[in-house]
């Protein structure tokens, strides 16, 4: 066990953890990075805990979407507006 090496690995992992969890097309890690990160998170209690906290945070924030959803009336109204645009009946 090498504390300095471990700390450097934690630092490396911390720079990539959120991109790994997001799986965004513009933030993808390489297969080697994914393998290295997953291996580290499995054996590192601290990084495993941080990963769990991020997953919980993301899950909690995503629930706000339920209470901020637009009304069906708004969606229907704008969908109808699309139809008006297409038929050229509406001008502003």
């Amino acid at each position, binding site marked *: 066990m090498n504390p300095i090496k471990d700390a450097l690995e934690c630092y490396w992992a911390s720079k990539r953890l*959120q*991109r790994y969890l*997001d799986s*965004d*097309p*513009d*933030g993808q890690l390489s297969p080697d990075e994914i393998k290295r990160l997953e291996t580290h998170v499995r054996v590192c209690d601290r990084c495993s*805990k*941080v990963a*769990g*906290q*991020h*997953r*919980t*945070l*993301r*899950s*909690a*924030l*995503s629930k*706000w*979407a*339920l*209470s*901020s*959803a*637009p*009304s069906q009336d*708004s*969606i229907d*109204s*704008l*969908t109808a*507006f*699309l139809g008006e*645009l*297409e038929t*050229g009946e*509406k*001008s*502003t």
Partner: protein
Amino acid sequence: MDCQQAHPGSDQRARFRHWVEPEIEVMLRVAHTLTGNKADAEDIVQDALIKAYAAVERFDGAHPRAWLLTILRRSHLNAVRKKVPLPVEQPEVFAPQSRQGSPEQLVMDSSMDGDLKRAFHTLKPAAQELVYLVDVHGLQYAEAAAVLDIPIGTVMSRLKRSRDKMRSQLSASPAFVQAVESMKS
């Protein structure tokens, strides 16, 4: 703008609906975050739809959501030139939703949500806006970059700092700690 002056051909019309209709909900969500209220949100989405329709012949069909959100941002900028902008949408104003679960779970959810809101409000407005777009509305990095007119690298670094700050704040919340443990099992 007069729609009839820039009326695309029938192919473009068909594609326009195909591209735009599935994105109306996310446009409304983002517009609400940008404007802070329903009426202004609908106004800027409507304005963005008109502009998108006029420009559809120049659109190559790739990434319609990012294209529409870029137009939406411009519509929002035009709107705020006319009046003082409202702050980012505040979660407190949302209508309460019916929740399901045991009484203990409801108490923990409520406590967790309060702690989450407090952590969220420690962020600067620009950071709140970004977290809302990505973590609440589910936008991808490129889509959030288009809405906020910032580079994707800035999206990633700002998100990381913001989430780390919230996570740090929440690590002192018993409800959050319990939620983390629950997710493990």
